[in-house]
């Protein structure tokens, strides 16, 4: 259990910090009603008006994030391969080419299906 004690301590610290900050701001913060404070924050500009009933989040942001994740993970897998590339010989080379091809397939699919078009 000794090896895990620091982790427990870290968890406790994080919990105390999070709960403490929120609690402190609730307790010590001024309670004046201010319309501007309740608006949604959009990097300082005037918020774009949303349709009544809550606007739907444009799904293209989600698609972009997903596409990024897929290819980012692909890159991550390239690192350990690159480190031991010389010992893995032809098998390693063929395996990695296959892997890259298999990741390219969804890219092609996305491209053909219009996932790369912004609108």
């Amino acid at each position: 259990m000794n090896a895990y004690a620091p982790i427990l301590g870290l968890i406790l610290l994080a919990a105390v910090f999070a709960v403490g900050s929120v609690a402190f701001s609730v307790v010590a913060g001024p309670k004046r009603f201010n319309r501007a404070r309740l608006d949604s924050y959009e990097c300082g500009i005037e918020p774009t008006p949303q349709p009544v009933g809550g606007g739907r989040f444009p799904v293209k942001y989600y698609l972009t994030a997903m596409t990024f994740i897929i290819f980012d993970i692909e890159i991550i897998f390239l690192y350990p391969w690159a480190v031991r590339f010389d010992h893995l010989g032809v098998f390693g080379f063929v395996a990695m080419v296959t892997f890259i091809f298999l990741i390219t397939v969804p890219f092609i699919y996305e491209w053909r299906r219009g996932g790369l078009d912004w609108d």
Partner: protein
Amino acid sequence: MNAPTIEYAELAPLITIFGAAVIGVLIEAFVPRKVRHPVQVAVALLALVAALVQVILLAGTGMVAAVGAVAVDGPALFLQGTILVLAIISVAFFAERRLEAGGDAFAPAASTLPGSEEERILVRERMLQTEVYPLALFAVGGMLLFPAANDLLMLFIALEVMSLPLYLLCGMARRRRLLSQEAALKYFLLGAFSSAIFLFGMAFVYGYAGTLRFGEISEALTANIGQDGILLAGVGLMAVGLLFKVGAVPFHSWTPDVYQGAPTPVTGFMAACTKLAAFGAMVRLFYVAFGGMRTDWQPMLWAVAIATMLVGAVVALTQTDIKRMLAYSSIAHAGFVLTAMVAADQTATAAILFYLATYGIATLGAFAVVTLVRDSGGEATHLAKWAGLGRRSPVLAATFALFLLAFAGIPLTSGFVGKLSVFTAAIDGGAAPLVVVGVIASAIAAFFYVRVIVLMFFSDPAPEGPTVAVPSLWTAVGITLGAAATLLLGIVPGPLLDLAQQASLFVR
């Protein structure tokens, strides 16, 4: 670390299916819309048949492939073969285009909002999607890998590869889209949650054993006495993940909603194949990896089995929707398989394999019959609408009655022989009280199966009742094969029992 040796011949079925799935994605990208459907169906069916042939050719192998990650042995090959057969029939059901006025059972584009203008345009132009085929192939690939995984990591990967396409497929119904999307979301959330718990358990087991491979975990069990806490926690958490996939109580709450909301061909596919794969993985994990500590996990399985059988049978009594009723009945069947699992020996494995095969065939057939009973709003799944079907289409009602009797375990159907094997293995393994509960649950279950038969044959039809659509060959052949197999395996089950017995030895 040097290049590993990969036994391509033994892994051929997996490579075939995954390769065909990738080709399916490319077909989606490049092939013009008009010919996409025949090409996809052809590729899917060819791949499945080729993989089935490869599995049959591999019969008798008993080895561990891919550096100990994948096991190619009796139970794996038996389940892979059965899953492939059921998948072939399922893909045929997916391809059915004569039942729906709009085309097939799937929404034209699953990403459109239900009720939106885009959806209306697509329906008007009779656009039909074919993405279901590569998705199904990916799911099948995962299902083939799941019972064959010999490594904790491979187990997890197979679980995810199997589940993710299924989450998508559940949301693609053409009718009642909101219900379908709700089902997909529920399945995804609960599935992701249980996968996370599964991974957590895996981490504990790895921490205890120091290795991921099942054989080596089993050796570590005998080596490390003491330090049990982590191991027990790990086994329990992994069991949660697997029991979720199987649909056992108390991790069953997704089953009725998902089965009801998903498009019915997909429900049949899920109900049959997912259970086979999940039970295969569970049996391998508990018998090979954790076999040495069976006294620790048997009590847990006792409790889960009793709860599953009883809850499945009792709650099904209250259902008014036929798909939900079949979902609860499949929960009860999972309970019956669990009774054999507690015995933890080779006869138990053989009994489980046989039961899963016969259950899969009957379930697939039953859900296919459900697709045929339709009214203006699509499938008529409310039980009251099934009244009097026996008079209007006696053949369909008789076929469905056969499947229901097989579920109930009436002799001369395959379900009876399955129950006989499973209960025999249970009593032989010392779980006689489980069999008593199983018999009670069967009696309760018989009630709601008989109720449907009574409704079909002895009630007067509803005035604006549903009609029975005449399917094309895709569905008709599948239902006929299912019914014939159910009857035949009830009268002469010898060959399949023999096969299951020969295929029941795990490689360690």
